[in-house]
């Protein structure tokens, strides 16, 4: 049987990271972009937790703590970002981020 090890988690995290980045770049919907951000943050969390588990002999709970912090950060960020999205929608009647190109150059 294949033993699930650190590398698997890391690869998973990398894949999620890439998916997140891809979604950030490709989505025109602001919410979609935010979801991409969440994906990346979750990739980070997977990394941290995996490192916390697999780092040999380390009894520190830094990794878990950090993961918790990241979750909080993600929540805060989402809160602010969604608020801004709402404001955006109120002003532009859309959440298509490509429509917001008035300020440029």
């Amino acid at each position: 049987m294949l033993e699930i090890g650190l590398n698997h988690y890391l690869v998973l995290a990398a894949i999620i990271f890439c998916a997140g980045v891809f979604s950030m770049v490709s989505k025109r919907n602001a919410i979609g972009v935010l979801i991409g951000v969440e994906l990346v943050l979750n990739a980070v969390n997977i990394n941290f937790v995996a490192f916390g588990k697999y780092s040999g002999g380390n009894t520190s709970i830094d990794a878990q703590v950090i993961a918790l912090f990241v979750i909080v950060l993600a929540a805060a960020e989402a809160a602010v970002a969604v608020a801004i999205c709402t404001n955006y929608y109120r002003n532009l009647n859309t959440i298509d981020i490509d429509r917001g190109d008035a300020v440029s150059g």
Partner: protein
Amino acid sequence: MSWYEQFLVAGTVVPLIGFAFLVFFGHRLGKPLSGWFTVLVMGTSCVLATCVLFSWHGLSPADRAELTAAAVSNQFYWADMGSVPIKIGVKLDSLTVIMFFMVTFIATWIFVFSVGYMAGHSDEIDGQSKYHRFFTYLCMFAFSMLGLVISSNLLFLFIFWELVGLCSYLLIGFYFDKKFASNAAMKAFITNRVGDFGFLFGLMMVFFFLGTLDLDQAAANFRQQYASSTGLFAIGYSIDLFGWQVSGMTLATLMGVGLFCGAMGKSAQFPLHVWLPDAMAGPTPVSALIHAATMVAAGVYLVARIFRLLTPDAQMVVAVIGCITLTMTALIAIVQTDIKKVLAYSTLSQLGYMIFGLGVGAWTAALFHLMTHAFFKAMMFLGSGQVIEGCHHEQEITKMGGLHKKMPVTCWTFFIGVLAIAGTGIPWTGPGIGGFYSKDEILAAALMRTDHWPPEAEHHAKAAPSDEELESGLSYRLASDSPEHGATDTSAGHDSQPKSEQAHGPSELDHAAAHHVDQAALVARATDSEHPTSPLPKWLFWFPIAIAYVTPFYMMRLWWLTFMGKPRDQHVYDHAHESKLMYVPLVALAVGTFFCSYWVFRPLLADAASAATDATMVVAIDGHAHDADHAVGLMLHHDVHRDLVPIVGFAFLIGFGVAWAIYRNGLELATRISSMPGIAFMHRALRERLYIDQVYDFVLVMGCRGFSRLCSVFDAWVVDMVALLCAALVRRIAAFSGWVLDARGVDGVVNGVASLTKYAGNAVRQPQTGRVRNYVLFAAGSAAVVLLLILAGSGAWSAVVGWIGL
């Protein structure tokens, strides 16, 4: 300071004070008064000069030498050049004294004449009277000219040289409302500047190679270097000049030629002669004073002063230029119909004689000719001024004729001038007038250099004429008729030599030859390709001889057409009149012409020849020259002048005769002759002054202006452009992006860079689309690229390190 110097300085400064006074108060003094004030000023100078002249004449050569030496120690410390001190002072010698007298005397009478000349409407420019301005300029000129004469230093000579040029410019352009006058003024100044360019060049070489700008010091150093084979004459010495290796001897020649270039400009020698005929645009007194008597003679004076710095080659250049000038301009004079133009060309021709004379070594004779010519030519110019003023500014001799009835004094004084310039005299015996002594002496020297040179050895034993004989030109002439007389008193000749250090030159040189001149110097001299005393080519003699026939012809033509025959234009004839204020100076100068031909001048000049005696390489073959003993002795022995008689003795008669024959009955015959085939062509060429002016105009003036315009365009379009590459780059980028540069975009370096920046600014802002996805893409993409680079670097940090190359 001896009182001689004080008088000379005072005589120089008085016109300056007059100038300053007129500058500030001239317009208050008003029309006749400022003129008379100027006469007073000049008269004062003249009195001072006269005192100096006669007192100096009375001194023994030894005393003169002492005074000359003393004057050197009274110099004023003017400035340093690098670490070489430049001092200025009075060059007190016989040449200065007589030049000074000549200038002040002629100037005084011409000023008197001017008061008369300007009394009418001649002082008006475009209807405004500029009376005092004219006299202000004249004062300035007098000051500059006198300063030039007394300068002991080449630099100061140059400064005054330019100042007389300035005055000449201002006075030629006096009627500046006339286009031709201002053109002529400009032409005069610029042509002179071309000559001065050479002068400057010579000056620099003197300063650098001889380490001084003092005339005497320079000559002494030149001599010393030659004697000891150092400096310029060091063995194997050469410098790189525009890629050519130039030897010391050639440099010395260049130095002489450079200085002579200045003289070429001022004395209007070919090819810089073009300005002088045009300079007749100035008021006639100015033509008389500046462009006949004094300033144009300054070139001759300069060559005389730098005579000791010339090399045989340089001297040859001087002779050749003189010869060309005297020939060409005399021919042109034949066909001119403007009274002043004829005189101008005759002046050119006579200046050519003087230069030629210096070129062949006839130092004293050339300067003697300068003196006599100054008097009679000034007189003739004033005569022409009288005619022009009398005929209401009619200058064409074709419209004159028969004026002797209306202006007898003018007519006959003018005739004296004609006689003088033609060299009238009784062959074999004398007496003669003006050119008979001076010009023929030049020709005699030329003959000697062509036919009897180098002199045989036995002539060394021959003695110089005695002191008393040298005192007057006449006795000298007589002495030349009886060679035995001169040969009797050898020791007297030696004793009579001035005791200045220059005069001791020959004996010192002998001394040096015996004891000091080392082998190297001898080798150096032996290897010189030119023998210092090589004979002249024959044509250099025959051209001046031929022109000696032409001169009486054109002068007679001028005189006859103006004063004799029947009036050709009744209107002009009716108006003609003579003014007393104007003919008094004519008479005075006529008297002066006689005076200068016989007394004082010639012996003093012979004395002044000490200034040429220690000429290192060239030969002054008259006066107390370097080889005084045998040069003069040779002349006496062979009696060159006697040899000349068959050749030119009757030239004046023949010239007069031919002219009289052709113009006796007016212009018909002349017109017929000039329209003969063959002659017609020459006639036209001469009338057009051999097209030299046109060529200069086309090649130099237009060329220069064209080139300058080119430069200007170049400046606006190229230099002001981005380094070409930069502009091209901008254009390339612009083409690539379809962004068309506006005209100013490539206007200049700065503009180009600015556009480039502007373009770059636009380019770097392209990603700033305002779309956040693009931002993210761009940022993430950049990061990804860097990441890829890292990975591509074989995946290892050390490899990345290697990639960076550190």
